[in-house]
């Protein structure tokens, strides 16, 4: 049974088709919920995950959007999107109820940042150097340095060649180095 037919039968409340659909997408949905929560720095309890999980499947039954999709890849992506959105909505409600985000060691809190003027100056230079780059280049840098994406992955995500990605990254670093030097910051040391 192809995906479109499967979805169509699910929306007609065909039990067999629904069971196949649940078996096929439950792992993706479960993974998506946990990943989205982790990316939002929020800790979900098992009950929370269970609730969101059920809501995702419920929204599939109530929303005919999936019928408009023709390819399996598109359906997979859309299922992930629904899971992410339901998780984000759930987290928002929890935050409003007073639940806090998990402190993320990766993100330096404002109070942890060195507040001395030299560091601020340094960040300002980095900011101005990055501002000279095009949005595409900045996006490539962010994907590589912040999200640890390989050149191959970035090329796939942005539909550009690997060579372009490599060139962008190396040039951006070089430009930044030159900008730092121009601003008189020659020997930046990690403390």
């Amino acid at each position, binding site marked *: 049974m192809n995906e479109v037919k499967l979805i169509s039968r699910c929306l007609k409340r065909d*039990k067999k088709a*629904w069971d196949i659909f649940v078996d096929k997408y*439950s792992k993706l949905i479960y993974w998506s919920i946990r990943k989205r929560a982790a990316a939002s720095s929020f800790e979900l309890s098992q009950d929370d995950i*269970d609730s969101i999980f059920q809501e995702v499947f419920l929204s599939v039954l109530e929303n005919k959007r999936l019928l408009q999709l023709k390819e399996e890849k598109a359906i997979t992506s859309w299922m992930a999107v629904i899971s992410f959105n339901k998780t984000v909505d759930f987290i928002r409600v929890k935050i409003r109820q007073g639940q806090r*985000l998990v402190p993320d060691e990766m993100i330096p809190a404002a109070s942890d940042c060195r507040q001395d003027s030299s560091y601020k100056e*340094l960040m300002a230079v980095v900011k101005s150097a990055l501002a000279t780059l095009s949005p595409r280049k900045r996006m490539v840098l962010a994907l590589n340095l912040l*999200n640890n994406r390989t050149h191959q992955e970035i090329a796939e995500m942005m539909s550009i060649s690997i060579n372009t990605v490599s060139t962008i990254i190396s040039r951006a670093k070089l430009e930044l180095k030159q900008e730092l030097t121009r601003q008189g910051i020659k020997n930046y040391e990690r403390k």
Partner: protein
Amino acid sequence: MNNTEDLIKQYLKQNLGSSDKTPFCLSDDILLGFLHNDLAEADIERAEKHICGCGFCLSQLNLLFEAQKKPKEEDTQVPDYLIKKAKGMVKDKEKIKKRRIKKVFYLIFAILSFILSFFIPRYFMQFLVLTLILGLAWVFESEGGRTLIMVLDSWRRHSHDDDDEISRRLKDRFKTPHK
């Protein structure tokens, strides 16, 4: 990682590391279109301009990219009870149909049995008992009957410590004041 990379990373973490969704964030259609290379050139540029400065959309794009690959097995052990519950959202139509037929059967024969009890006085009591049995079967087949059983069961299990106090208060409420 060298110092330059470290600097850029620190800056990016501070500005894009964690971000909530805003009203300006890209729609799901645009993000998916970007990922699948389905957008017009102008839309791609607009999307890149937004994503490079939005932590939420950047993380969303990353997650969507990862979701397209098969999630790793160790990350995705879905509890069986969850899958069972999800499957239970769609009821078996055949079973529902059979249940409905059964309900109608009980009701019709209960009524028939009641009518027959008047036409065949010799078996009046037998037909009445049969009516009662079929009537009860009809009640318990319905959703209302099951709810009633659940409520009674729950009441039976709860603590009866306050029952005397509740009954005393009810009696006091209905007592007429003496003149």
